[in-house]
């Protein structure tokens, strides 16, 4: 392990870490935003559930490298465009979260939603004020899985030439240079942990009533 490599390349590591964060994080937010209404539909409209969940399940089976390579055909972009990765990662996030959101909403206790309706909440307002907050812990657990998964998958994008922390892995392998491999591995794991912790903290802030149970 060559520590001077780390200090010499610190600003580069930070830059790639930021790129990695964007490639993994933006899809996470986009995917969640799209998954919420789709998951709500799947939970709400009985006949829409199989096609929505089945469809997202199908998308999820496509291996990442294959999806990265195929993205230009769909989007008409160049193969090394970052937007390929962003869209592909959004698809994965979405595929994972639609089911989670549907499950989470269905798991909201009936008593709570019916009480809310009885008190006079309009459907949309009830969704935001009652269903969504109560479903948050489960959705958050799905989001954590998606986040960790995204960070790992984004490194694969370095194989098609998109810059991120995965470049340390490919370059380290090409040069048979262990220090770079270690930098790549450790920084990816750290980034995954950072994502995980942030989601947990935000969830904790959004669901203060859970504190009693978690502690």
């Amino acid at each position, binding site marked *: 392990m060559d520590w001077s490599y780390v200090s010499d390349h610190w600003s580069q590591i930070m830059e790639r870490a930021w790129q990695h964060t964007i490639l993994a994080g933006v899809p996470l937010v986009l995917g969640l935003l799209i998954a919420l209404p789709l998951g709500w539909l799947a939970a709400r409209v009985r006949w829409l559930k199989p096609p929505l969940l089945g469809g997202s399940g199908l998308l999820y*089976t496509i291996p990442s490298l294959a999806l990265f390579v195929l993205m230009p055909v769909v989007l008409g972009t160049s193969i090394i465009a970052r937007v390929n990765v962003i869209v592909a990662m959004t698809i994965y996030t979405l595929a994972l979260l639609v089911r989670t959101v549907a499950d989470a909403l269905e798991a909201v206790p009936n008593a709570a939603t019916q009480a809310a309706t009885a008190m006079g909440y309009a459907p949309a307002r009830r969704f935001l004020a009652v269903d969504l907050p109560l479903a948050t812990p489960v959705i958050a657990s799905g989001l*954590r*899985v998606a986040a960790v998964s995204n960070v790992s998958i984004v490194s694969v994008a370095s194989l098609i030439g998109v810059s991120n922390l995965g470049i340390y892995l490919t370059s380290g392998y090409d040069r048979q240079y262990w220090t770079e491999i270690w930098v790549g591995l450790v920084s990816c794991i750290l980034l995954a942990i950072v994502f995980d912790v942030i989601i947990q903290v935000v969830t904790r802030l959004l669901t203060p009533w859970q504190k009693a149970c978690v502690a």
Partner: protein
Amino acid sequence: MINQIWTWLTDGANWSGDDGITHRLVQHLWYSGLSLLIAGVIALPLGTWIAHSGRASWLVTAANSLRAVPSLGLLFAASMLLSSKFTGDTDLPYLVPSIIVLTILAIPPLLAGAYSGVREVDPAARDAARGMGMTGGEVLRQVELPNALPLIFSGLRSATLQVIATATIAAYIGLGGLGAFLRDGIALNEYDAAAGASVLVAVLALAADLLLGVVQRLVVSPGLRTTRTRTRRNRRADATPAAAALGPTNARS
């Protein structure tokens, strides 16, 4: 562009020979199947035992935290570590590290599936089974395993997707299989081959998942079908990381 991909896929010349699609498809299946088999032999009994005995459940958590390690890094590290150990004109320098990594990646979902599957068998059913005079082995074979099958299958399907995807990447450390077309296509700017092989990999993953889905339907008792969503919902409601890591919700590459 779609035409080019189609031409590549339908050109008979691309299907034959050692570098042909047929051969690499078989390779891909063989590596994936072998890794899944090894992982299954390790993880299924282990997960069942952990759930059955209630001992060493930290192993499941530990295996799950492997998800944070990028499989690309794992492949490269394993290759650098191991391939120099094999000399001579064999496949072993890239085969061994690849199979090891694929196996390692398949273990967490399989382990979690077997563990949660057995764990979540209705305690009343287990109690009744013992109470009517089943021995430990009979409880396991006749009650726990059949009831654990839905979750074991979702673990297996997760693992299969993971392995097929990572086997594609393993081409970069010299493994054959469909990934070789992607590697070479990207390197040599032969986009038709790279995209064509990507289609094949996607179809392969889809077909494998579909096939396992059919097998699951045949093997799992219909009595578990109606309750399945209910149990899963209960589990999700716990929102434990171990629970969340199940089903199709597994990290992959």
